[in-house]
């Protein structure tokens, strides 16, 4: 108890500190920005020592930065880290800080030397350079390999920003507290704020300045860290599992992945605590708490080590890069094309269905190849695994086919999934996505992964840096993935000229980095590109710099993601000089990989995860399943909602989409679920207006009826009537709807109930909405105009009471209707008398006229929606 109180005090205190630190960071970043503007500025000379490559590297981060505008602002990034994975943003933050620090000779030298035991002894100049990567690498080396594998308390990297040390542990602690206390709840905003706050700090030690890499870093960390941290599992649970999938076989995987993600966070936290203030009692306490929560996670943990290094898949591309080092000069001979490229082109063309597609595809390929030869990646790229996805966006119709194809080319597909998000810098999702996706594909990828692991170390050994060896996994996994992602994005035609060029820049950077580290080559072209890069960076800096400063407080898992998405959008627009509406959303659309037919509906609070999204062919099966299932409406509704969600997320708008919405609308009508029906109707309206065919007339009729019964104002009704085509007016359902409208408008109950009886399709379900009202109006009218009495048999017939048993014999029908009618009349205050002369029940009209009333609906509930009744809710689950 006491501990917690103290801890909370500290928590507050440290939060304050953190904010201060953030500010510091921001300032630094701003300085950084100014610094980076001038490409000719000292860095060029200072850093271009034997390892001029490092320049590239450092710029690399900048260059890529703008294109990932959303995360561009280090300060803004801090608020984004909702979940462990998201910590990357802060890392970015730190990255800048680190970088900045590294630029100051004193600090930097201290940093590098002291923090990283093995820092680049062979590259003396690199000390001063000490741009993001080296620092990062060294730190990570410490953090990950040492801490996690040996689980030893290491001294904190002394050089790196001492100011961070204090806040970091404390925050970690608070966060962990929060986490532990909130297990079972989902991302409580405030709590996460703290958690988020702490993340940057932690990660700063372990993370590189390269923000791309950070993402993957996390992943790699996770992979390596699984064992030591059973404690984090529960927390993981809380935060990460995006959609508890009911399906059995996927679940474990997902869980793993989420666990992994979280683990990295926890791990870094723990690492922090161990590292920095091992003696701090609060921390130990916290750790204890965390661990106590943890046991659940123990199982998944153990399995983690075997987790596929999806990262390592990306490693492939890194390998390629290495090869690019070797054949760097190859760019000078554009006449030669590697056979793999030829195969790639063939593959791409094979996907095209017709000539038009082929033409597009060819243009596109030309662009890719030109680009590749320009930035020197023509030979470095592994064309065998180069994704074909960009084509898919063009070949809209071949979607499912493409998916199938991509699944076959396992690595390609994974990459593609990621790449969808990566280009935008949506790293949170990316991490998550990639983890999930990869984990789900574990088996497929296993082979390639192993390969990667085997190969990647070699590459780094080339650099002959001892510390790097420790880092192998990290770097191989992170770097390549980033690169892979970008490559993937590049081929997307949608990003537009500017975007594409920026990508190629980044690619170039990376290539440059690799090249430079060995060859120290720097072409004039590269210089020029770097200049443009830095300019871009400058711009985005201006944009995001001031904004981010206020951000750190408003974090929350979901909101931060959304915010990131928004910022992403804005920054994309900013960077490319486009208006928001000019952004090509196709390039941001994900493609699902989930093969489950059944899926629970959860409202998305963040960007969707491709591994939980079903592609169209699976959705078709899902729809068929829903249509044939004997289960109740609640189940169907949920399944349909999840189908709709998946469609929306993947931006599938075709006949199938219409079919789904129509199915759902009909089912909703049948079940009287107006809210759901209305949603579907609204969507259908849009879909039909796009020219997608479906049961247009039927739903036009429904919407007319709905408008009539909802007392929509005259103007809207008129305009929708005016919009009816002549063909539509000939349709049975539409004609019926118009007749109903007319009957309602004139109060003609006779024709209304006749139409009710003859209602086509589902119209009668909609008319049910108005029956009660119509009956009441009718009885009111009757009691005013008929004298002295009115036989109930007539009323029952006129008011549609007898309609139900029309099939049966005449007598039965009449008697059935009579009883219902009598009961209805009585509940509405009508005076029914028995007329002995005719042996009939009669409505005493004069008396009834005064006593009629509309009773309160029986199923009325305080919150207004009977569908939300508790019992319903309970039966649902």
């Amino acid at each position, binding site marked *: 108890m006491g501990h917690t109180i103290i801890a909370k005090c500290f928590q507050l205190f440290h939060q304050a500190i953190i904010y201060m630190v953030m500010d510091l960071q921001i300032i630094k970043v701003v300085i950084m920005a100014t610094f980076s503007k001038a490409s000719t500025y000292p860095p060029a000379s200072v850093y271009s020592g034997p390892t001029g490559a490092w320049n590239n590297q450092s710029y690399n981060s900048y260059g890529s930065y703008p294109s990932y505008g959303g995360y561009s602002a280090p300060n803004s990034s801090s608020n984004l880290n909702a979940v462990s994975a998201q910590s990357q943003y802060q890392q970015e933050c730190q990255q800048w800080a680190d970088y900045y620090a590294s630029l100051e000779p004193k600090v930097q030298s201290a940093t590098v030397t002291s923090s990283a035991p093995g820092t680049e002894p062979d590259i003396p100049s690199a000390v001063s350079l000490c741009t993001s990567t080296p620092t990062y690498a060294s730190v990570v080396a410490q953090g990950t390999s040492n801490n996690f594998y040996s689980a030893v308390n290491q001294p904190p990297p002394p050089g790196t920003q001492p100011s961070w040390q204090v806040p970091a542990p404390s925050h970690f602690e608070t966060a962990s507290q929060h986490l532990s206390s909130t297990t079972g709840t989902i991302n409580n905003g405030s709590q996460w704020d703290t958690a988020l706050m702490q993340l940057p700090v932690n990660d700063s030690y372990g993370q590189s300045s390269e923000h791309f890499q950070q993402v993957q870093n996390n992943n790699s960390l996770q992979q390596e860290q699984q064992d030591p941290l059973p404690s984090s599992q529960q927390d993981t649970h809380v935060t990460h599992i995006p959609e508890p999938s009911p399906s059995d076989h996927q679940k474990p995987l997902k869980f793993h992945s989420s666990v992994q993600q979280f683990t990295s966070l926890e791990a870094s936290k723990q690492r922090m605590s161990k590292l920095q203030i091992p003696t701090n009692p609060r921390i130990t306490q916290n750790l204890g708490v965390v661990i106590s929560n943890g046991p659940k996670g123990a199982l998944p943990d153990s399995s983690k080590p075997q987790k596929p290094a999806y990262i390592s898949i990306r490693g492939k591309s890194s390998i390629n890069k290495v090869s690019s080092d070797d054949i760097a000069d190859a760019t000078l001979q554009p006449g030669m094309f590697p056979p793999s490229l030829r195969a790639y082109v063939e593959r791409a063309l094979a996907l095209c269905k017709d000539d038009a597609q082929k033409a597009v595809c060819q243009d596109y390929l030309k662009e890719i190849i030109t680009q590749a030869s320009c930035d020197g990646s023509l030979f470095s790229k592994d064309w065998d695994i180069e994704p074909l996805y960009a084509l898919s966006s063009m070949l809209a119709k071949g979607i499912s086919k493409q998916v199938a194809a991509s699944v076959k080319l396992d690595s390609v597909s994974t990459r593609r999934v990621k790449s969808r998000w990566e280009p935008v810098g949506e790293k949170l999702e990316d991490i998550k996505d990639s983890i999930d996706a990869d984990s789900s594909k574990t088996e497929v990828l296993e082979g390639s992964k192993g390969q990667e692991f085997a190969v990647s170390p070699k590459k780094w050994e080339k650099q002959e840096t001892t510390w790097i060896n420790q880092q192998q996994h990290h770097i191989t996994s992170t770097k390549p993935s980033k690169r892979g992602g970008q490559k993937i994005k590049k081929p997307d035609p949608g990003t537009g000229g500017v975007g594409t060029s920026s990508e190629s820049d980044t690619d170039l950077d990376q290539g440059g980095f690799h090249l430079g580290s060995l060859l120290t080559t720097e072409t004039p072209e590269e210089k020029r590109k770097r200049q443009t890069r830095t300019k871009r960076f400058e711009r985005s800096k201006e944009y995001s710099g001031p904004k981010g400063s206020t951000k750190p407080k408003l974090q929350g898992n979901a909101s931060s993601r959304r915010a990131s998405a928004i910022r992403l959008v804005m920054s994309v627009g900013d960077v490319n000089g486009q208006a928001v509406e000019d952004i090509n959303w196709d390039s941001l659309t994900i493609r699902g990989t989930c093969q489950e037919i059944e899926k629970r509906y959860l409202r998305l609070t963040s960007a969707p995860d491709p591994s939980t999204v079903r592609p169209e062919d699976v959705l078709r099966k899902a729809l068929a399943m829903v249509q044939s299932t004997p289960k109740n409406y609640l189940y169907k509704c949920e399944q349909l909602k999840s189908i709709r969600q998946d469609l929306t997320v993947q931006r599938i708008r075709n006949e199938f989409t219409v079919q789904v919405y129509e199915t759902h609308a009909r089912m909703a009508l049948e079940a009287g679920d107006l809210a759901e029906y209305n949603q579907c109707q609204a969507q259908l309206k849009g879909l039909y207006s796009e020219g997608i065919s479906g049961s247009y007339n039927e739903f036009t009729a429904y919407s007319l009826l709905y408008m009539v019964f909802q007392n929509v104002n005259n*103007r809207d009704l008129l305009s929708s009537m005016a919009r009816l085509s002549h063909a539509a007016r000939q349709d049975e359902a539409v004609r019926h709807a118009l007749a109903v409208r007319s009957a309602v408008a*004139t109060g003609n109950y006779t024709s209304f109930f006749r139409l009710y009886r003859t209602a086509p399709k589902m119209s009668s379900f909609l008319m049910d909405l108005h029956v009660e009202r119509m009956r009441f109006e009718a009885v009111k009218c009757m009691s005013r105009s*008929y*004298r002295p009495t*009115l*036989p109930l048999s007539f009323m029952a017939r006129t008011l549609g009471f007898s309609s139900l048993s029309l099939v049966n014999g005449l007598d039965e029908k009449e008697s059935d209707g009579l009883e219902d009618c009598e009961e209805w009349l009585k509940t509405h205050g009508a005076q029914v008398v028995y007329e002995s002369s005719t042996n009939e029940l009669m409505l005493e009209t004069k008396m009834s006229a005064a006593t009629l009333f509309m009773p309160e609906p029986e199923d009325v509930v305080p919150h207004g929606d009977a569908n939300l009744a508790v019992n319903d809710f309970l039966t649902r689950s």
Partner: protein
Amino acid sequence: MWAREREEREREMALDRRDSVSSAPWRGNAAGSLFFGAAEASRKLAEYVNSVIEALSTQNGRTLASLLAISSANSFCELVASALELAKEPIKILKQVDKHAPLGDMLSNHTKCMHSYQQRRYVEAFNALEKSANMFLQEFRSWESAWAMEALHTIVYELRTLAQMADREMVANGKIPDKLKGAGSFLMKVFGALAGKGPKRVGALYVTCQLFKVYFKLGTVHLCRSVIRSIETARVFDFEEFPARDRVTYMYYTGRLEVFNDNFMGAEKKLMYALRHCHSSKRTNVRMILKYLVPVKLSLGTLPKEWLLQKYNLREYLNVVRALRRGDIKLLRHALHANEDGFLRSGVYLVLEKLEQQVYRRLMKKIHIIQKLKDPARAHQIKMEVIVKALSWLDINMDVEEVECIMAILIHKNYIKGYFSHKSKVVVLSKQDPFPKLNGRANIL
């Protein structure tokens, strides 16, 4: 007859701004001199700027308005556009205005708009005009008197018309049109600048009317409400003090709104006001008013003379009116069906549709009269079979139950006084005033 009242109404001149624009001395050269050298272009532009300066310094709102007009027939648009192309440093020339009022930027935007307009790039023109209008409004706010009202109105008018053109252009280019919406929000700003107390209020109604036009076009009529409230609740300014043309337009639009709300009494009042004050020479305007006034009057039980419908080319109502006179359901249905699209678009369909009950009433009345001739003692009892037969003569085939329902509704809605006996299938009419006057009844239920 209300149609005749129109003749007696006071003939108020609805001023058309653009028709009565005073001609600047050098207007004459505008047309013929489209191709001239750079020097001459500069001179022309300078002349234009000087006219603007003069209008500003003499506070001549009308001249300023004519100088700023874009789409009207004799605007300076063409001249300025060509001069702008050829002149050296046109901005410098335009900036001379700044000596008199800080409108240099405004004028440069305005001339840019003229230029784009001349080249039929309406979206660009609109964007430039919007900037220009914002700057002008800012300056206008600072002027104490309302001398520049006419110029402001010109800008408002041009902004709205250009927005429509820009929207059309955007649609043609496959974009989502939003310029008219933007114009609407700017007009709202202008309205805010005018609607307060003070001399500028007199111009508020014009802007209101322009706003109505925007909102009706956009289909966002609900936005009219706030503007209407601001006009009608203000006690500081008598409605009659607004210019007649604005009052007519305002009443026309608010009358239409009342039609949508099924408030026929209110609609009649407003539309009658508009008709009375609308100059009879403005035949299209009169027709537009009548287009809504006729159905409203019909539903209140007043039938127009046929010559009125002929005169204003409102033939679509001819058969409707005839059907009402004769009690001919079939004719009414036919008339409604024939003009369905037009009625739906203008929004009077639902009003006309409800006339059916009046036609039934007329039919009942006729039957009643005939029965009275035959047998006065039992005339108030109309048998169902008689009604059904009468309807079948009109080619309307309905069974007894349906007719019964219609009779019940007629009685219920007070079109007919009396009751219905289900047992003997007879409509028993009240002996006193079985067919009460309709005035004001139509909107009950």
